[in-house]
């Protein structure tokens, strides 16, 4: 974010407690001291009001980056996101655009209970006019953020809370990672695992263990929900003939349903040698109890078991 702010005076940050406190997850850190309170703005506890200001600023030519404390609170700002940010460019015949970036700390695993642990990215991915991305590595987090800032349309970034502590190679200076392109994290011949966000890492861990059983899984990191890189999944499935979708959001009517349907409609259908399997979050409000919380989202053993059953012809 600091690079974007240095490169472009129009870029500024908004959010609750992002100033002196450094953000609920310390993402903004000491940026308020480097760029001042005019460019790192603490907002009142009103997501609707803050989002409205951000959309208005974007319309007026600024490039705001708006942080939600928890992605769960996006529900309070839905009017501004869905009915305003996503629509204005189209309803005014392209005369204006909304170059807005919103960041959503999401996901479970922090013991924050049902109202602070959800994965609601599929909600926004359902809205044309928005772009919705889920970087899974430090490299992508930086590159996709810079791509989002440069994008003329509103880009929603869902960041998994447990990935904030992840370390990984990140180049100095400016670079971008394209929005709308999936990335194959591991090549394999037996099954394609399409995963998002933290599930990419769980899928990779599962794939390593499965390799010991001579099951080679291909892991595709979706990275972008809208636009979605269906072609990458098609290409992979044509090669492996089996597909497992792993995502933390609630399984029913989630990302996996979209991927399954897209594959069933595509040329890859004729290459499927087994039913498509979805592993998603349980159909329940996320429990506070840490054991139940873990049980409510897919874990590495769940992925291993699902893939094993699929490859060994049990389903």
């Amino acid at each position, binding site marked *: 974010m600091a690079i974007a702010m240095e490169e472009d005076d129009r870029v500024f940050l908004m959010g609750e407690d992002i100033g002196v406190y450094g953000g609920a997850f310390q993402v903004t850190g000491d940026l308020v001291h480097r760029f001042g309170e005019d460019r790192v703005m603490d907002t009142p506890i009103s997501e609707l009001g803050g989002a409205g200001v951000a959309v208005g600023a974007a319309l007026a030519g600024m490039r705001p980056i708006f942080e939600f404390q928890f992605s769960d609170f996006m529900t309070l700002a839905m009017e501004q996101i869905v009915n305003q940010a996503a629509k204005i460019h189209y309803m005014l015949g392209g005369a204006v655009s909304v170059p807005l970036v919103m960041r959503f700390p999401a996901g479970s695993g922090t013991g924050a209970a049902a109202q602070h642990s959800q994965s609601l990215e599929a909600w926004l991915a359902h809205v044309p006019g928005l772009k919705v991305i889920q970087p899974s590595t430090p490299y992508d987090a930086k590159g996709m953020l810079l791509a989002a800032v440069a994008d003329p349309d509103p880009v929603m970034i869902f960041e998994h809370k447990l990935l904030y502590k992840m370390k990984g190679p990140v180049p100095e200076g400016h670079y971008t990672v394209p929005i709308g392109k999936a990335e194959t994290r591991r090549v394999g011949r037996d099954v394609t695992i399409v995963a998002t966000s933290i599930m990419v890492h769980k899928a990779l861990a599962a794939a390593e263990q499965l390799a010991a059983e001579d099951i080679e899984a291909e892991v595709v990191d979706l990275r972008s929900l809208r636009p979605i890189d269906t072609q990458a999944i098609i290409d992979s499935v044509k090669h492996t*003939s089996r597909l497992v979708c792993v995502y933390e959001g609630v399984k029913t009517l989630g990302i996996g349903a979209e991927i399954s349907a897209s594959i069933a409609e595509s040329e890859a259908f*004729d*290459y*499927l*040698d*087994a039913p498509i399997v979805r592993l998603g979050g349980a159909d329940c409000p996320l429990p506070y109890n840490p054991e139940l919380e873990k049980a409510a989202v897919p874990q590495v053993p769940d992925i291993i078991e699902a893939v094993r059953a699929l490859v060994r*012809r*049990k389903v």
Partner: protein
Amino acid sequence: MATEIILPRVDMDMATGKVIAWHAEDGARVEKGQLLFDIETDKAAMEIEAPASGVLRIVDARIGVDVPVGNTIGWIGAADEVPSAPAKPVPAANSDAGLRAAALQMLPAERVTAEDGVKTPRATPCARRLAKQHGIDLATVIGTGPRRRVQSDDVRKVIEQTPATTPTTAAAPTAPATQRAVAPGGLHRVWLRQGNGAPSVLIHGFGAELSSWRPLLTASGDVGPVLAIDLPGHGKSPMTEGADLPALVGAVEETLAEENVASLHLLGHSLGGAVATLLATRGAVEVRSLLLLDPAGLGPEINGAFIAGFLRAESEASLVPWLRELVSKEANLPQGLAAATLRQRRDGRLVAAQARIAATVLPDGTQAFSTRALFETLSIPAKIVFGTDDRIIPARHALGLPGTVALHLFPGTGHTPQLERRSEVARLWVELLRAAG
């Protein structure tokens, strides 16, 4: 429902192919397994059989025009249901009572059960695609997936075992592939490779068929053109009048005449080895070299229990133990051989024909004929290959022949060196072709 006829992929690199001849006319009644059309790619020519029985409706009758693989070129179905113009598959919603009745008639009886009504084979999309590409009827594939679902591996096993629809290995590009259709009357035969010069003619053993040569061909380098023949009552060849050795040889001679093959090299296995030896000495064709693999005709004993058990077997459980007798190591037995053998036997005619041949030439565990004397007069290069572990015909039969006949003994090898010693046999084959010129 009508069965779609598509242009199959017969070669891994094939994107398009051309139909070079139809063997049935538009509107004609065709039987499943009957030769339907010939296609040609830049590598090979191939015969394609009818995937179903019914009335043929050709929708793309162009000859010699490149057509993309997978294109619909015709349909087979009941007289009134087959689309006459280039059309989409008949949608299931159209199936009125008459059409369903027609479909029921076309289905094998065992697939219609009281509780399920019409049982279509459960198959994955991948298995369906493979079956379609190779012209395989899914009803003939045994599913090993959950609830007996047919998966791609099940179809691949059948493809490996099915003649004519499997790709030939690297056809020699020296000569333009010419159309070589099977004339009515002769034995079923397939040009496994095209090329210039005198062809090698392959004659399989008792109970086998021409596709049993395919593993050897994958291991063979430049052996020129190769013609493989199904003996009478074997593979796809009809039974002939006589079941004795001269009748078998006569049928092969007739077939060679139809193919205009006057000068050739012979490769025969087991009973086919005896047929080849006779062919080489009767003078109807000019035989330039003779390669015999564990041939019959050199001594009296043959494993009568094998012959009887092989003919009697009606299930994999009863067939596989006999097939194991063919090889020294069980692992050398091609996967799916038992299933393919049983599939071919379904109508019972093959077993009946083979039983007749066995009763005539191999009665009571005895070879009722001898070719030993013929070797005395043989003036062409000849090699005999024997596995010393052969449990069908003892390898010692090959001893005591004239010194001009080379004998190659392979330890740790059973009755089928073309499977167990394929690279060595391929090498001896090439050496013999070179020696014969």
